[in-house]
């Protein structure tokens, strides 16, 4: 019996290439559901999902919520502020209390690396990591992979470069795992101060200058520059960052081939990316957002179903013809 996704999705580091492809392939038919006059299928009817967000998020939370609702699940949003979390309740206590109300799944975003895995080991419900500290953001990387596959028809053999604050980016980490597993060549480019030590050991090429990355890449995934990084002294100023690492049409004009432009959002226009690039003909930034819903539907569906012993029983007879 080949494995599905298992109980939780905490990251891409421990998924196999086949498991990643399973999510991408399952996401394909879910794209069509969002184009229907009634954007809803009953696949997760009766399932209760809690979106537990200990960090601010607009896009990811809304994307998960759409995915859940389009699968007919019942959803509850819990934000850290204004809940018992702000009264000092621990993460596990919060989750156990929710579980006592008979929930089925938890989507968690948390500032601590490893929070999703920690929780998954302690509760029966399925846990999906919606971003944990500097660790991983698996559904973002999966939607990035799907968008690259849509645009180029494949992932294997492509040169994909992540640009910007790789050091603090869980999006970068998940992307690196996923891209390498699916056979892409991965590059990273950004200021020396925002590059993790020893990242080459993952099999990643480091480009100190953006011009070199543009020369090499088929795809550039431009990371959001967290403004707090400037205050913490990692970069001298936003203007300086834009001058050296800002993705501008002038820089892209020197590329030997058209480069697909991605950004996980929210964008700082005029800092890491110029508006003319973000809105340009090779930008797939809004396709990423559309694909996000389909990918999250696929992940929810795969985690909610997929009990091999029942599937075997159904194969032997008793299932629909």
């Amino acid at each position, binding site marked *: 019996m*080949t494995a599905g*996704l298992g109980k939780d999705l905490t990251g891409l580091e421990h998924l196999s290439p086949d498991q990643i492809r399973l999510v991408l*392939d399952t996401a*394909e038919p879910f794209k069509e559901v969002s184009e229907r006059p009634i954007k809803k299928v009953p696949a997760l009817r009766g399932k209760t999902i809690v979106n537990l967000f200990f960090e601010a998020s607009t896009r990811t939370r809304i994307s998960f919520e759409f995915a859940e609702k389009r699968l007919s699940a019942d959803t509850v949003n819990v934000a850290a502020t204004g809940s018992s979390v702000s009264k000092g309740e621990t993460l596990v206590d919060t989750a156990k209390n929710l579980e006592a109300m008979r929930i089925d799944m938890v989507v968690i975003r948390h500032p601590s690396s490893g929070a999703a895995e920690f929780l998954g080991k302690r509760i029966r419900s399925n846990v999906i990591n919606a971003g944990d500290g500097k660790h991983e953001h698996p559904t973002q990387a999966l939607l990035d992979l799907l968008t690259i596959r849509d645009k180029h028809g494949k992932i294997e053999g492509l040169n994909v470069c992540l640009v910007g604050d790789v050091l603090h980016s869980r999006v970068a980490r998940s992307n690196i795992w996923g891209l390498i597993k699916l056979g892409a060549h991965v590059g990273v480019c950004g200021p020396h101060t925002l590059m993790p030590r020893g990242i080459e050991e993952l099999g990643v090429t480091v480009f100190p200058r953006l011009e070199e990355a543009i020369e090499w890449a088929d795809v550039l995934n431009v990371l959001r520059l967290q403004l707090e990084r400037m205050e913490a002294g990692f970069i001298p100023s936003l203007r300086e960052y834009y001058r050296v690492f800002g993705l501008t049409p002038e820089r892209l004009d020197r590329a030997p081939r058209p480069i697909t432009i991605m950004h996980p959002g929210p964008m700082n226009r005029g800092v890491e990316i110029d508006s003319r690039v973000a809105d340009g003909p090779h930008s797939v930034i809004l396709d990423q957002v559309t694909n996000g819903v389909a990918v999250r539907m696929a992940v929810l569906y*795969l985690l909610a179903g997929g009990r091999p012993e029942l599937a075997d029983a159904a194969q032997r*007879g008793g299932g*629909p*013809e």
Partner: protein
Amino acid sequence: MPRSPSDRTILLDARAMSRALQRMAVEILELAHGTDDLVLVGIQRRGVELAERIAKLIEKDEGVPIPRGALDITLYRDDLETVGPKPVIGETRLPGDLAGKHAVIVDDVLYTGRTVRAALDELADFGRPKRISLCVLVDRGGRELPIQADIVGKSVKTGPGDRVDVLVEEIDGRDQVDLVRGEGG
């Protein structure tokens, strides 16, 4: 699990299947009083191929295009936990709004009726057809729901351990319907 060849009998060979489809096409025209408002909807996977075949037969006789669609009912099944860890969800595409249309669902085998129940639910989310009919190549009995086909290519009595294999040229390389008797069959 390998079975001995004696377990397998041919219900329809390629020529018998072709005649059955021809007859089903005529019956659909009678049922729908012509081609106005007619839409054929095949259920993934082999129902889609059969719907395509029947649509072409009708087009040849009537000289008008027959709109057709494909329906994958996986997301409407009532047994999510038994779909397996690696479900394959096929394409769903319908030719526009179904309101006021006569939709004919086409599938290869009618058995428990649960697939058709799911298909009816799914179609309802695409509009309000004035009528929905059911057309199957093989009715093997064994219903678990109050669902009947309007048009049947071939009826056969089967037991729960039996299997009906429908092969179509487009997917399997040849046209044939086999009945595979299981234990106690």
